[in-house]
């Protein structure tokens, strides 16, 4: 049994909230550069160069990349041989509170969805915990902006809709999102499972390294085909027309019921933030 102190988790989450909001991960930067070369529209190219300059200023002048510093999504893979000294949920939320305060990040969370009073410290986080073999604690912090979150969709398709139905659903979600989701976007997709499982897979898919395609051959092909078709929609950077609407399509799949074919599309803007650490 390995012991991890709650305060270690707090410290890590705090640093990751700040890190994710000031610098993009290396895979995102790489895709960004590749995609900017592919853009055909003059206005689109100008937007790409503004966004690259924006990343430079964010890092050098310590200004968050986007003012919507997100709701903190935290994925925890807790090793079964780990014992946490303290309250795990409290430790994560305390990390978010400290990170958003000390990192000059925007407090965007309201206590109640209808009464809408700001909690003032960006807590609580949305925490997804899995128990896994081993003696480590793996933490992913993914601050999620809501311009793109609002354009996400879920479809309960029929088995007869098949692969074509799935592709159509994903493309329709991106088409409807249009300029609102701050393209160039990253498209996270969950196929299979149940209503909630496919939504969670779609969210998790956004945290996958963009240079690592799905390990499943047919899924990898679907990702590439969808990326091409989505870029053919013409929405472009900022939604102002162009050849690059998406930077990547990341798909996760899971077994499902004989009667169903759930598909969730979680869209992320070009500020697809995630920080990853293993304690």
């Amino acid at each position, binding site marked *: 049994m390995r012991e991890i102190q709650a305060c270690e988790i707090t410290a890590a989450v705090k640093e990751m909230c700040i890190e994710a909001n000031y610098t993009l991960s290396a895979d995102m930067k790489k895709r960004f550069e590749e995609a900017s070369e592919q853009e*055909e*529209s003059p*206005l689109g190219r100008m*937007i790409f160069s*503004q*966004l690259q*300059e*924006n*990343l430079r*200023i*964010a890092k050098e*002048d*310590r*200004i*968050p*990349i*986007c*003012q*919507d*510093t997100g709701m903190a999504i935290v994925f925890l893979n807790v090793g079964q041989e780990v014992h946490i000294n303290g309250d795990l949920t409290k430790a994560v939320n305390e990390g978010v509170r400290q990170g958003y305060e000390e990192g*000059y*990040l*925007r*407090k*965007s969370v309201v206590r109640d969805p209808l009464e*809408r009073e*700001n909690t*003032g410290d960006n807590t609580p986080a949305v925490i997804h915990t899995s128990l896994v073999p081993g003696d480590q604690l793996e933490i992913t912090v993914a601050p999620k*902006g809501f*311009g793109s979150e*609002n354009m996400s969709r879920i479809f309960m398709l029929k088995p007869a809709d098949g692969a074509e139905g799935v592709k159509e659903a994903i*493309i329709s979600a991106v088409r409807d999102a*249009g*300029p*609102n989701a*701050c393209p160039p976007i990253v498209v996270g997709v969950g196929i299979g499972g149940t209503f909630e499982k496919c939504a969670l897979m779609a969210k998790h898919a956004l945290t996958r390294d963009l240079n690592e395609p799905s390990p499943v051959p047919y899924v990898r092909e679907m990702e590439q085909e969808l990326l091409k*078709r*989505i*870029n*053919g*929609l*013409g*929405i*472009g950077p*900022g*939604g*102002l*027309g*162009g*050849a690059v609407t998406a930077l990547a399509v990341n798909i996760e799949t899971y077994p499902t019921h004989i009667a169903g074919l759930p598909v969730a599309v979680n869209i992320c*803007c*070009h*500020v697809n933030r995630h920080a990853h650490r293993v304690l």
Partner: protein
Amino acid sequence: MEYHIQAPVTKETAAMLKAGDYVYISGTIYTARDAAHKRMEEALNRGESLPLDLKGNVIYYMGPSPAREGRPIGSAGPTTASRMDRYTPRLLDLGLGAMIGKGKRSPEVIEAIIRNGSVYFAAVGGAGAILSKCIEKSEIIAYEDLGTEAIRRLEVRNFPAVVVIDSSGRNLYETELLKYRKE
């Protein structure tokens, strides 16, 4: 075309701008987003006056991140405009000169833009760090308790934006994607 324009905007300026024009805005603009729009609507329903004079003024749909010491503002990019659509026609009819945001507008807003000779600009979403450099002063003028959603008066210099919907209702989001559509 590229223009340097002053805020507040005159009717003549708004009428001159065409969808696709690139503008650099200098002068005074105001921020308001979801919660501030709701409060303004409630104030109007009660017959009260608004905390800002709408005439010719520009509302920027934006809620900044906190400013570091010695800086006027934190990250300051546009938020999605369509969430303000239900409140917007009334504000346009009361004289609102222009709006800066990102994303689509409803048919009702577009009609009100045409009816009032107004204009809708888009700034680049997710470019909050670079856009903050164009903001020289920021002061909360109303609804301070709303935090980032308070109404702020901003002094801006050469704030870059694109005319997306002009006073004749032309909409760049609808025309430009057709040029690049392959699907």
